[in-house]
């Protein structure tokens, strides 16, 4: 076994031979929207942004903080808490932080969690029930939470795309989820154009990054001397106006554009297109599912770090008295046996079937459910897989197989 525990490496065909499944022949590269509204925030003055957020009604500000060996969104009070000089090294199954002697605070790709825990909580009380003291009939009361207005700093384009997808899932249907909706509305999103993609990143091929184009209130581009800052919403424009910053120079804007182009070019991994539904559906009986099923531990790490995975279970936690109970939802995973439990059998009793469920849902099912692939190219499932399974390599190996007929 190789040291990274991936087992026999999947046969990856020469990428040149892979058909591109999409509308255009190459992944798009967005130029950042650095128009005349782009302002310059000097690094020495960056705390001004935090102060402006606080007076604008966001007492709680979350930013990336290096903690326990990874970057996590935590409450911050001053710019100096941000991970200056920190770089992340991500490969299949590995995540390491190391320090550089420079002031850059956003020169890394991402941490294990996107915005998902902020809007779709890992564990959430949905309702309570209590037995009526006379009739013993259950009296139901839904949980009310009032999320504190929160500004989040340092969000990447891939995670904004994922948030938009989860928003569609939880709030655009017939039964909008009030918890997700309230949490989403409480957020003010300050994104950063990604300048240092990890080796596991492939957002350029999914069309979701590395440059921020939508879904943000404000967006920053980081230069040595400070930040270019522009707005993406009415709230963002108001806040930017109140800060009264000088306009960015043409040279600064050009520098940021070049950094974005470099970040696109630097991505080593890619999916072979944005419309993989048909080629995957054509290969539901491919031999490759067994090969990846043998390596996969069915641990569900990929689904926990995936910013779009929405599966959850519902459970009751009754009080010992038997008179009160709480009904919760908690993140779950299609890699768990519970997920396909049917009372008398499991729909997916082995890992091959669970991996196939996950991948076909992510890259095919989402197209029919939400009009696009469920993958935003953040690469977390690759980094945080304990055996380093690489979705881009698995898709390449799968698509290299000939089409199998559906067994009758």
């Amino acid at each position, binding site marked *: 076994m190789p040291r990274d525990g991936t087992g026999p490496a999947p046969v990856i065909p020469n990428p040149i031979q892979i058909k591109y499944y999409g509308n255009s022949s190459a992944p798009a590269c967005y130029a950042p929207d650095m128009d005349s509204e782009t302002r310059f925030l000097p690094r020495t003055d960056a705390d001004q942004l935090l102060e402006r957020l606080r007076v604008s009604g966001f007492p709680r500000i979350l930013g990336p903080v290096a903690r326990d060996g990874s970057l996590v969104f935590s409450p911050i009070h001053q710019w100096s808490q941000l991970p200056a000089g920190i770089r992340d090294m991500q490969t299949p199954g590995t995540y390491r932080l190391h320090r550089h002697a420079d002031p850059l605070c956003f020169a890394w790709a991402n941490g294990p969690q996107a915005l998902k825990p902020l809007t779709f909580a890992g564990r959430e009380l949905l309702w309570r*029930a209590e037995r009526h003291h006379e009739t013993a009939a*259950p009296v139901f009361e839904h949980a009310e939470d009032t999320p504190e207005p929160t500004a989040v700093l340092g969000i990447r384009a891939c995670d904004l795309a994922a948030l938009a997808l989860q928003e569609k899932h939880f709030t655009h249907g017939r039964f909008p989820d*009030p918890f997700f909706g309230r949490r989403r509305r409480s957020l003010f999103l300050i994104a950063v154009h990604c300048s240092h993609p990890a080796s596991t990143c492939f957002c350029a091929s999914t069309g979701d990054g590395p440059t921020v184009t939508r879904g943000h209130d404000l967006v920053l581009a980081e230069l040595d001397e400070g930040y270019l800052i522009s707005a993406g919403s009415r709230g963002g424009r108001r806040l930017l106006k109140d800060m009264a910053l000088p306009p960015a120079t043409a040279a600064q804007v050009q520098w940021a554009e070049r950094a974005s182009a470099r970040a696109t070019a630097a991505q080593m991994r890619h999916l072979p297109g944005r419309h993989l539904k048909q080629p995957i559906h054509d290969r539901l009986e491919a031999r490759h599912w067994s090969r990846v099923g043998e390596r996969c531990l069915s641990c569900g790490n990929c689904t926990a770090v995936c910013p779009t995975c929405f*599966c959850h279970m519902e459970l*009751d936690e009754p009080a010992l008295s038997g008179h009160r109970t709480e009904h919760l939802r908690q993140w*779950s995973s299609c890699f768990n046996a519970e997920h396909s439990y049917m009372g008398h059998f499991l729909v997916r009793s082995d890992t091959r079937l669970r991996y196939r*469920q996950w991948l076909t849902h992510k890259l095919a099912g989402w*197209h*029919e459910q939400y009009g696009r692939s469920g993958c935003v190219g953040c690469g977390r499932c690759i980094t945080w897989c304990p055996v380093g399974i690489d979705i881009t390599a698995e898709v390449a190996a799968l698509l290299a197989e000939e089409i199998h007929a*559906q067994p009758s």
Partner: protein
Amino acid sequence: MRSHPDLPLAARVVGRVQETRDIFSLRLALLDATERAGYRSVPGQYNMLYLFGVGEVPISIVSDPDDGGPLEHTIRAVGRVTHGLERLRVGDTLGLRGPYGRGWPLDAARGSDVIVVTGGLGCAPVISMVRHMLRHRETFGFITLLQGVKHAEDLIWRRQYQTWAALPDVQVLLASDQGGMQWPHAMGNVTTLLDQARIPADGIAMLCGPERMMKAVIPLLTDRGMDPFRIWLSIERNMQCGIGHCGHCQVGPHFICQDGPVFRYPDIADWIDREGF
């Protein structure tokens, strides 16, 4: 709509029948008079039943929505929640929310002959439809009911089938893999009944039961001239939220809880009886 999409309502057991050793029916009435009066369902829909402190299960409504009485649910005790529900008696209370999902195609069925094919214990989702058709007898054409079970004692609603069989323009055919004493009907799979069945070439078919059974029945219907687009299936999966959020019930791109449980056959043809989906 209520502000919280998945908050149950309190309901009381007003009737209980032990159908077989492990199958029972509960007749439930919502406690709140306004909710009770406002409750509307379509045959083929289901409710989420909640056992206090234990959890929820999706259960088909077997009563005809137009009967105006309590909501009847027929349940087999197989898991934690259903074993608990089995212990409820008349007067006990539980939680109920619904109805959910897409029911049988009432509009398409009106004015048509209808053939209903069910297998195993999976017939519950069609019972409401059969009752609805018989209540509005003049609205529907000839009704063919085919039901197959594994053991003769699994045939619930035996008396009801007898009553239905005696009605004009209704054909009832029953089969059991294992007949036992006093089983007057056919032996074997429900597919063995199709030869004797009146199959309405321009009618509507409603299927429910094991996916393998349904998959075996469909070619027998289309061979006799039925249009695949007029064949409808009720599909069953693990459901925890019932509102398309939790992800458990997905079959390919379909959320069974909301897109189904009733599907037009061509819409679900690629996915039924397919290992792992």
